């Protein structure tokens, strides 16, 4: 267990998977993330909450260097994954993203068959040599994502033909298929109905056993249900992080309290 920097409240953690120190993010002249320090525990769910525009997505996208794809975005500071700086010039962002997968707010299946959607990652990374192995990965990913029973008879059908909730689980399965270590989810349920949301939440809870998960959510209840630790962002600052229970019952900062009790944001 690593020692966390000062301002952040210590909480019991298994292992540190990702640790970020003094992270600044700029979009052109906009200072979107201001001096964030955070530790994200291994095999646990960490939730990012905070009012809209506070920089949750921006920070999440730093963790797998998706911000590199935005021209005007500049990231400073250190982010370590398993103790290695991911912004080091020797790190290939493409390989990093195979280790740190991402699920987006809006389900975005490729316009390919369900099978090919899942097989996309393994094929690109050359994870399999035989068709049978690929079949195996596709099946197990879909099973882990809780989608297998619904789609096993229509693997050749288009991924875009699924319902919104199924599509989102397909995207999760697609992310799992490359066996990442970390899965980043940016408001994965915001386009889903309560039933689909419940399924995805259940899934997140199961995935926790094998993956480190970071989830951005606007729903307090969701953060409370699925996460072990919660981080509260406000105007580009990380205000507070701690065990989910503590954050919701006993927040230290006034801003956190105001936010979770619905006084602003």
């Amino acid at each position, binding site marked *: 267990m690593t020692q966390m920097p000062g301002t952040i409240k210590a909480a019991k953690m298994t292992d540190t998977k990702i640790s970020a120190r003094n992270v600044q993010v700029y979009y052109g002249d906009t200072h979107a993330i201001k001096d964030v320090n955070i530790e994200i525990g291994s095999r646990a769910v960490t939730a990012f909450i905070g009012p809209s525009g506070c920089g949750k997505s921006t920070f999440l996208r730093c963790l*797998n260097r*998706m911000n590199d*794809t935005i*021209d005007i975005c500049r990231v400073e500071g250190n982010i370590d994954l398993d103790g290695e700086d991911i912004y080091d010039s020797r790190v290939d962002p*493409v*390989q*990093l*993203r*195979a*280790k740190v*997968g*991402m*699920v*987006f707010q*809006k389900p*975005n*299946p*490729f*316009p*390919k068959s369900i099978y090919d959607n899942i097989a*996309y*990652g393994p094929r*690109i*990374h050359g994870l399999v040599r035989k068709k049978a192995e690929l079949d195996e990965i596709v099946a197990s990913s879909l099973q882990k994502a809780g989608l297998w029973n619904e789609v096993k008879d229509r693997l050749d059908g288009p991924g*875009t033909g699924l319902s919104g909730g199924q599509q989102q689980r397909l*995207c999760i399965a*697609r*992310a799992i298929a*490359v066996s990442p270590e970390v899965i980043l989810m940016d408001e994965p349920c915001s386009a889903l109905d309560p039933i689909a949301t419940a399924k995805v939440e259940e899934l997140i809870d199961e995935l926790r056993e094998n993956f480190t998960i970071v989830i951005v959510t606007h729903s307090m209840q969701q953060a409370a249900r699925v996460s072990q630790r919660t981080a509260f962002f406000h105007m580009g600052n990380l205000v507070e992080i701690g065990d989910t229970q503590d954050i919701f019952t006993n927040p230290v900062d006034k801003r956190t309290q105001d936010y979770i009790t619905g006084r602003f944001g």
Partner: protein
Amino acid sequence: MPLSLLFASCLLIAALAFLMGRGKAFKSAGGDIRKLHSLPGYYGWNSALMVLLPSMAALVIWLAVQPLVINSSVSQMISTQSVEASSLDLIMSDVRRVAEGLNKAVEAGAMTEAEVSGATAESMNVRERLGAVGVALGSDVSNETLQAAQSYRDLSATSGLLRTIAVLALALGGLVFGVVRTNKDFRARNTVERVILGLLIAAASIAILTTVGIVFSLIFNTVEFFKLYPAADFFFGLTWSPSFGGGSDLGILPLIWATLYISLIALAVSVPVGLFAAIYLSEYAAPLVRSVAKPLLEVLAGIPTIVYGLFALLTVGPLLVDIFGSNGVLHLGWMQGGTAVMTAGLVMGIMLIPFVSSLSDDIINAVPQAMRDGSLGLGATHSETVKQVILPAALPGIVGAILLAASRAIGETMIVVLGAGAAARLSMNPFDAMTTVTAKIVSQLTGDADFASPEALVAFALGMTLFVMTLGLNVIALYIVRKYREQYE
């Protein structure tokens, strides 16, 4: 009253109606706009439209019908002998010409009104007198023609007067109607909007009706042609050798072959180049490069095709001969002259590059960013993303773009007229001169062709064939493009 003056007075009345309508609306609301159903301007427009619509409609109808009526009543004066000797059309055009000449002579002061109406062929040499005011006639004017011309003039004058009266009456009636109807509860806005809707519909129908008209004239003439020339020989004939003396072979196959051959070469040039350019511009180019290169490429699309034709004739053709000709650097002797399928195909390919690239660029850009993020988020590189996700997603649209380009290639004329040669030939050698459907349409209709001969009418059959081919391609292309659009909506 001359037409322009009549038109101007209608506009004036309309302007007056506008002011009166608006003024009355104001007054009926006691100067309080909020009591009006619509904004005051609408009342003004409503009154103005009440003036313009009926009067202009009457004017247009009158202008269309008047010559028909006058023609038919005057042509009854022409005796059957003269019709048999010449044709009614020719005589009537003489009559109109004399009538116009007389008008001109009166205007110029060379004749008096009394002289004109009293003139007979015996008492006056009309040809000479009209020649003096600059109206040249082909032959002496017969008494019959002169009489007809006189009555033509009279009828025109009367009808012109009636027209003025009718139009002005309608305009003024409209003014009164529009203004009387105006009061604060009248729904002027809705009325005006309905009229505008009508105008929009009229504009749309003009476009559609014209297309229908074009198609019908094509069909009509094509049918005419097939009465004179067997359809089987036309569609399956292997030789094209029109001779205006008759006895021509008018087989379309050599022309179709050249058309397709040239289009194929053009597509072989434009599709890869255009597509790669589009991929580079939309996926890889820095914003600065893109902002310069894209407009530049689109400038290419604005160059008139005749310029490309000159380029083919003067630059590309000689260049190819220098390479593939008998004295060329390769000593192949494949190419005899500068005009060839290859010349036209290459230049047409260059012409189509911006077309393909700008369509493909739009289509690639339409692939949602989420698709890119999804792929990049799985650890795919940019080019893997382009190859495996973006291009497959854009493929149907790109196929549509290619089909549209193909239909442009098939219909292209100037480049083939100048670059491909004039001899119809069925040959595999791309360095031979050949000629296409479009080029032959041009050559069959230019020159002194008799429009009733199969040699001239064949142009319509060629045009119809071309029309069906490109229409088919366009329909398929649009279908594909539309189907692709649905995927993301």
